[in-house]
């Protein structure tokens, strides 16, 4: 790709970027949120048309790509967001728009199912190709998405943050496959915000910042520190994170024998004032449902939740919020963003449902609330009246944080709070979280990223198959140990 | 037509074509308005609408434009009363056609005589089934047009004269549609008990199209029971239904239609022109209805009512 330019209205998303991938190489593409990585790849995948610049494939110019042309040229694209059709079966999704047909029109389902099975076997996965995609979990959906790329003959696979929803084991599986592909001469472009992954799997790197090309080279020649500096453009000392211990003795929030049939059972824990507890585990451990139960978004079948000693009224989410529990849900796009609303209203929404008295809304107060929150969480936005969808991912997440921080709750439940946001934004969010506990709030984080847990948690609870398997204090935390209990290895022997 | 500002100005306001009868009436009215107004050198406005809100707006508009006469076919007589009052309040002569506005001082009215149609039909049924009625109850079916005032009047008229020995086994609302009536009849024949199906001797409908649907269903019946329907009635002696009189008589089914010609609206337009010509117009002009059965349909087809109706097609 040579001298690629692309603008969206006022935003110059990609500026004069040149980029090349050789044969049999895994090429890491790095950059902050909004650096233009996905845009550049969308151009290569034929989804977007560049404003100017050329694309060469095997030395031949192919500058007017469409998704169909790109796939004919052997380019496969795993998109950043899941792009599966929930109401079709797994194999139908895999072959969507590439169906195998008999005698011109008749779908050859047997063959498609057979080949789907083959590809799952190759990926070391146990997914039944004849179930509906809607019945799969996020992580398996992501794996189906990956399988779709592996199904056909190809030369180059673009993977745009393929591992955000995957567990470590699944990631290892993926890497094994990628290495296998490389040995067959197939190349990969790999986009991720997770440094360790990049260093593990990629041969070459290219860094983008603000839509511009910064540098490229071999991963062997740099370390994580250098890479981070390149992509941020300034110096972040990642490891020195001043987490002060401000845990007090008073128990604020308590779950006793909490169960939700089919998902988790007998979960008990006590959260103290100023404490951060992290919950972690693997796919199917029931964490997601647990977080929903704690917030009243899902009915627990058994057990009690207490807040400041009194039983929490979980009849409605509104009553939970009013009692002093807030939650930042996972999957921002699906569960948090109100896409047709401006930033100001997105921030105010939880305030309205829990704290606001009367029915009248004063725009003036809303603007003031926006201004306070913008300062507190350092949101970078053109103005309070712009749609929230005009913001970059990290800033959207900060808006969602603001929605809840303004409520002055006692307990904050954060479900996967840093999904898909870059190093810099992550850092700021960690700061926000620690500021909360400094103010005497308590926090429960649900996360599958160990570095994150390591940075902020006072205690870490590891779940396995819907039960608490092990609890670590901050001092005992160790990635290998956590994995040991998360996989339930202790129960096997 | 007719933008000549000095010329006298006639407004004709009608409902839009919701069923066949109205469709034909609009055609006649539009033709007559154009022809008569141009012959006499008047300007005119011809308006249709599909609900009373729009119709009353049209009234406001023509009153504001300073109409010299308004010919109004109200959507529903009573619902338009209030709006029609504004015409009289503006001292504009008003001719009301077809629908009755109760307690109202219009210049002239030509109400469709739906009560009489119903009454005559009741009498005809009494005569036709004289011997059967003497023997006991006679079972019939009723197919209504819709639920508005016109079919109400036809029904009420019928039951005011019909013998008390007539029993309605079932009634249907057809929305003036032939296909609906036919399917309803077929469904009746195939879903009711033998006793009920075989007991039906007469069918009273509100419209020729509806009657045609019922007859088609009877003709097409191939079930196991014996049908005993002898008489089917309707309103509006249309070319199509008259063409089938012999066809069905051969199958043992008689028909009786009460003529109600869509061309009669022309009379109302003529009255409007008369007003503009300075003639004295007032009072009530009943729209004539004629009984047409197997005995007289051929003469009817030679008569003036019939030929006027089909003069423009």
């Amino acid at each position, binding site marked *: 790709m040579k001298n690629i330019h692309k603008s969206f209205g006022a935003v110059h998303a990609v500026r004069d970027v040149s980029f090349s991938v050789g044969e049999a190489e895994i090429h890491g593409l790095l950059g902050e949120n909004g650096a233009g990585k996905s845009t550049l790849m969308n151009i290569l995948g034929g989804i977007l048309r560049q404003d100017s610049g050329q694309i060469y494939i095997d030395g031949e110019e192919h500058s007017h790509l469409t998704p169909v042309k790109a796939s004919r040229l052997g380019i496969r694209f795993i998109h950043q967001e899941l792009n599966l059709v929930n109401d079709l079966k797994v194999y139908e999704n895999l072959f969507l728009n590439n169906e195998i047909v008999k005698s011109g029109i008749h779908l050859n389902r047997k063959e498609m199912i057979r080949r789907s099975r083959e590809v799952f076997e190759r990926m070391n996965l146990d997914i039944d190709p004849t179930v509906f995609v809607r019945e799969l979990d996020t992580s398996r959906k992501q794996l189906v998405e990956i399988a779709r790329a592996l199904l056909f003959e190809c030369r180059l696979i673009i993977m745009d943050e393929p591992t955000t929803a995957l567990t470590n084991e699944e990631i290892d599986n993926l890497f094994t496959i990628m290495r296998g592909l490389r040995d067959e001469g197939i190349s990969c472009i790999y986009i991720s915000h997770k440094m360790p992954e990049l260093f593990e799997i990629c041969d070459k790197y290219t860094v983008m910042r603000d839509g511009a090309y910064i540098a490229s080279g071999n991963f062997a020649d740099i370390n994580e520190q250098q890479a981070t500096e390149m992509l941020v453009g300034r110096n972040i000392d990642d490891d020195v994170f001043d987490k002060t211990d401000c845990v007090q003795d008073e128990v604020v929030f308590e779950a006793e024998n909490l169960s939700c049939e089919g998902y988790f059972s007998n979960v008990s824990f006590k959260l103290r004032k100023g404490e951060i507890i992290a919950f972690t585990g693997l796919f199917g451990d029931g964490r997601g449902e647990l977080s929903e139960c704690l917030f009243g978004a899902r009915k627990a079948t058994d057990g009690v939740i207490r807040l400041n000693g009194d039983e929490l009224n979980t009849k409605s989410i509104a009553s939970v919020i009013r009692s002093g529990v807030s939650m930042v849900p996972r999957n921002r796009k699906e569960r948090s963003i109100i896409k047709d609303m401006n930033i100001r209203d997105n921030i105010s929404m939880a305030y309205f449902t829990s704290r606001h008295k009367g029915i009248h809304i004063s725009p003036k107060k809303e603007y003031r609330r926006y201004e306070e929150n913008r300062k507190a969480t350092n949101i970078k936005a053109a103005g309070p009246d712009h749609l929230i969808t005009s913001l970059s991912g990290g800033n959207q997440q900060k808006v969602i944080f603001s929605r809840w921080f303004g409520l002055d709750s006692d307990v904050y439940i954060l479900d996967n709070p840093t999904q898909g946001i870059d190093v810099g934004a992550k850092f700021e969010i960690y700061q926000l979280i620690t500021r909360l506990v400094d103010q005497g709030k308590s926090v429960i984080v649900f996360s599958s990223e160990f570095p994150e847990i390591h940075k902020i948690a006072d205690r870490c609870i590891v779940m396995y198959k819907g039960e608490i398997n092990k609890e670590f204090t901050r001092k005992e935390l160790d990635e290998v140990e956590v994995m040991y209990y998360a996989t339930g290895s202790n129960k096997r022997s | 037509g007719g933008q000549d500002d000095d010329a006298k100005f006639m407004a004709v306001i009608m409902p839009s074509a919701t069923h066949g009868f109205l469709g034909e009436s609009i055609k006649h009215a539009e033709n007559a308005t154009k022809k008569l107004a141009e012959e006499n050198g008047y300007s005119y406005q011809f308006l249709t609408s599909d609900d009373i809100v729009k119709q009353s707006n049209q009234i406001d508009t023509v009153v*504001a434009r300073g109409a010299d006469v308004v010919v109004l076919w109200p*959507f529903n007589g009573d619902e338009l009363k209030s709006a029609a009052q504004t015409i009289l309040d503006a001292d504009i002569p008003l001719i009301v056609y077809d629908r009755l506005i109760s307690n109202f001082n219009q210049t002239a009215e030509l109400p469709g005589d739906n009560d009489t149609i119903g009454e005559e039909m009741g009498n005809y049924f009494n005569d036709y089934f004289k011997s059967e009625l003497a023997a006991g109850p006679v079972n019939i079916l009723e197919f209504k047009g819709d639920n508005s005032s016109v079919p109400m009047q036809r029904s009420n008229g019928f039951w005011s004269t019909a013998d008390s020995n007539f029993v309605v086994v079932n009634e249907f609302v057809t929305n003036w549609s032939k296909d609906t009536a036919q399917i309803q009849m077929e469904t009746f024949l195939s879903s009711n008990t033998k006793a009920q199906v075989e007991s039906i001797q007469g069918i009273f409908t509100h419209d020729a199209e509806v009657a045609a649907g019922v007859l088609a269903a009877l003709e097409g019946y191939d079930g196991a029971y014996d049908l005993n329907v002898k008489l089917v009635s309707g309103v509006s002696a249309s070319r199509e239904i008259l063409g089938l009189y012999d066809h069905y008589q051969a199958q043992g089914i008689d028909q009786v239609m009460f003529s109600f010609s869509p061309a009669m609206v022309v009379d109302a337009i003529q009255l409007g022109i008369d007003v503009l010509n300075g003639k004295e117009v007032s009072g009530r002009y009943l729209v004539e209805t004629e009984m047409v059965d197997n005995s007289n349909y051929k003469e009817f087809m030679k008569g003036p009512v019939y030929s006027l109706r089909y003069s423009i097609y």
Partner: protein
Amino acid sequence: MSTSLELSMNKKSKGFDFKRFIINHNYILSLILMLLIGRIASDQFLSFPSLMNLMRSSVFIGIIALGMSLVIISGNIDLSVGSILALSAAIGVVVFNTTQNMLLTLVMCMFLGALMGFFNGIFVGVAKVASFIVTLATLTAFRSITIQFGDGGPQIVNHEIYFDTLRKLGYGKLGPFPYLVLIFVGITCAVWYLMNRTKFGRYVYAVGSNEKAARLTGIKVEYIKVMIFTITGLLTGIAAFLYIARFGSVDVATAGKGFELDVIAAVAIGGTSMAGGRGFIQGSFFGAIILFAIDAILSAFQVPAFVTDFIKGVLILGAVLLQKALDRNAE
């Protein structure tokens, strides 16, 4: 990152954005266009009384369209409004004939409308049946009750009393302004306030935009949906009362029949997205007026009877296409 943000900030002009305004509120453009076209046909078209007439005829569709906007913004549809109007009005007539009390009649119409709306709301919000199907069924069922109630015949307000009371409301004016128009404007302002300056309004937008997210911020989505349909019913009840005032009788079979299509067309012309989440109350106000302006134009141009509906269909499509075209241009 900071530089790219600044970049994007520079391009978004602050303060009043005229182009954006016209794109969002293009119904104003459509209205002006219609009025100008009408002016060509008749010099009377733009006169004040003529405009008042136009607005007065759009009152019924318009008031219901205000409610329908809530329904559509929340991602639903209500096909039963015509039948709700008929039943409320039919019973309203009986109440008025019995009590001769206008206020009581109004209250009764509003109550009945709200009750029927509530019924729709329960099925949509709580039983979670698609609103299209629920209101398709109640469209039929409410009408059937109305006809049964009126025994098939029209319900007529007592003649003498009508002319002394209700008709004054339906035809009277305050200075140059018909009462009906003033009421319409008043209710529009009230609903505008509800949707733009109260929590409830925000919830309606939120539910229409992202129901799951709305639920997770503590909004009681079921309750909001029930409320939306109830409010629409209530507004339809008010329209029913004004209907009695203006027409003095209610034909149980035809009153309000097909209103739902006009109402939805008005909302769409007013720029509310059929997909939910976006829309302006004032748009529906103007949408209703545009709809009747189309009728008025067709009258003014003396379009042949059978062709009017054709042109009307084309103009509705045109108004919505204009919106789309402007919207696309903006990108």
